[in-house]
């Protein structure tokens, strides 16, 4: 239980995916303009991350490992994730249209979100058990959500700020992201080991 809690806090704050591991930067910069879209995207990411962690872990343990095909991990994972996203999209559309409406547009974007493939690669690297891998996926999703929502608030303010010509658009956004990232360094000492 203690380990799971450490994984949870670790992935949300200490090694926040976006701000310290640089995973999922594209959606972080792409959809953080408004808090509402940030919320939608985050919801979809948490949802897919938890499911993909479970599926990729099973594929790795029962398909690749027994046949010593670990070198096919990258290909297998990305195809599993792509298929899963497609599957989730279809199922949601049929069964829970209201949720599909909320998350639908963001789902296709998630296949190429490096946070999803990244967390699958991380559980392999760290030899997580099934439960740990799923908890890690959930926590990584929450960390992504936290960063995205915090940042969208800042960007809404940036809209009205007076910015030098060359910095308009992306550059000032990156500088702002740097400042947010500094605050997360403060969590570094939170977990030992």
């Amino acid at each position, binding site marked *: 239980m203690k380990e799971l809690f450490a994984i949870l806090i670790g992935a949300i704050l200490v090694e926040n995916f976006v*701000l*310290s*591991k*640089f*995973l*999922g*930067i*594209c*959606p972080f*910069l*792409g*959809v953080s*303009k408004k808090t509402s879209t940030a919320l939608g995207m985050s919801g979809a990411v948490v949802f897919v991350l938890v499911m993909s962690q479970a599926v990729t872990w099973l594929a790795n343990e029962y398909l690749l490992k027994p046949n010593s095909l670990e*070198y*096919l*991990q*990258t*290909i297998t994972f*990305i*195809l599993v994730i*792509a298929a899963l996203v497609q599957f989730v999209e279809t199922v949601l559309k049929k069964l829970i249209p209201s949720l599909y409406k909320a998350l639908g547009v963001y789902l*296709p*974007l998630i*296949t*190429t*979100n*490096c946070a999803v*493939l*990244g967390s699958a*690669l*991380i559980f392999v*690297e760290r030899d997580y058990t099934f439960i740990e891998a799923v908890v890690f996926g959930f926590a990584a999703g929450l960390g992504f959500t936290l960063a995205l929502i915090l940042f969208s608030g800042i960007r809404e303010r940036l809209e009205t700020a007076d910015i*030098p*010509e*060359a*910095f*308009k*658009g*992306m*550059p*000032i*956004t*990156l*500088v702002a*992201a*740097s*400042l947010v*990232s*500094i605050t*997360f*360094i403060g969590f570094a000492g939170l977990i030992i080991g």
Partner: protein
Amino acid sequence: MAEKKKPFSVLMNGLIKENPTFRLLLGMCPSLAVTTMAKNGLGMGAAATFVLVGSNLVISLIRKIVPDKVRIPAYITVIATFTTIVQLLLAAFLPELNKQLGIYIPLIVVNCIIFARAEMFAQKNGPLLSVLDGLGMGAGFTLAITIIGSVREILGAGTWMGIPVTVDLFEPAIMFILPPGGFLAMGFLVALFNKLTDKKDKDPECETGCGMGCPGCSKAANGGEA
């Protein structure tokens, strides 16, 4: 429009005019994550270039036999294959670099630059032009992340490619090799690039190109308009 493309201009296109990192703002994750040292930037750039050239070549060769509906999974498989090749080569011959770059090597699969070039270029052009495009884009990417790596390494550790360069000039600011420094250096370099190439960043086209860079390309990746 894609009829008379000059090989040389295709090659040079990726370096400045459509520099994938500074201009198109694609592939941000590796650009920020591995650039704590110039050497890592160079290594990452070389690995990505290899994948880019290989996948561009294969995709342009198979573009006429792959049905449009399944082209996305087909492309992903091609790209993942080349990524795996790079991964195994690095593990065998450059284990140190492989360790430094870690999970960011397999993550080349989801690097938007490669997918974007497959969609935007390789599937519309012949093998030769596609290889040149891959080379040009790869060189542009390598150049950009080596620059970011150099800036961060010099400011953050006082060395360049491992050689001490600042000696007593100033105390290195460790922040630059930490994550915030990545965002900061990238922000200032993009601003500088905008200033030098004299492009107004506020025109609407670029606004979508920048902010929606990756989501835009992944939208195309999922069967929307290319």
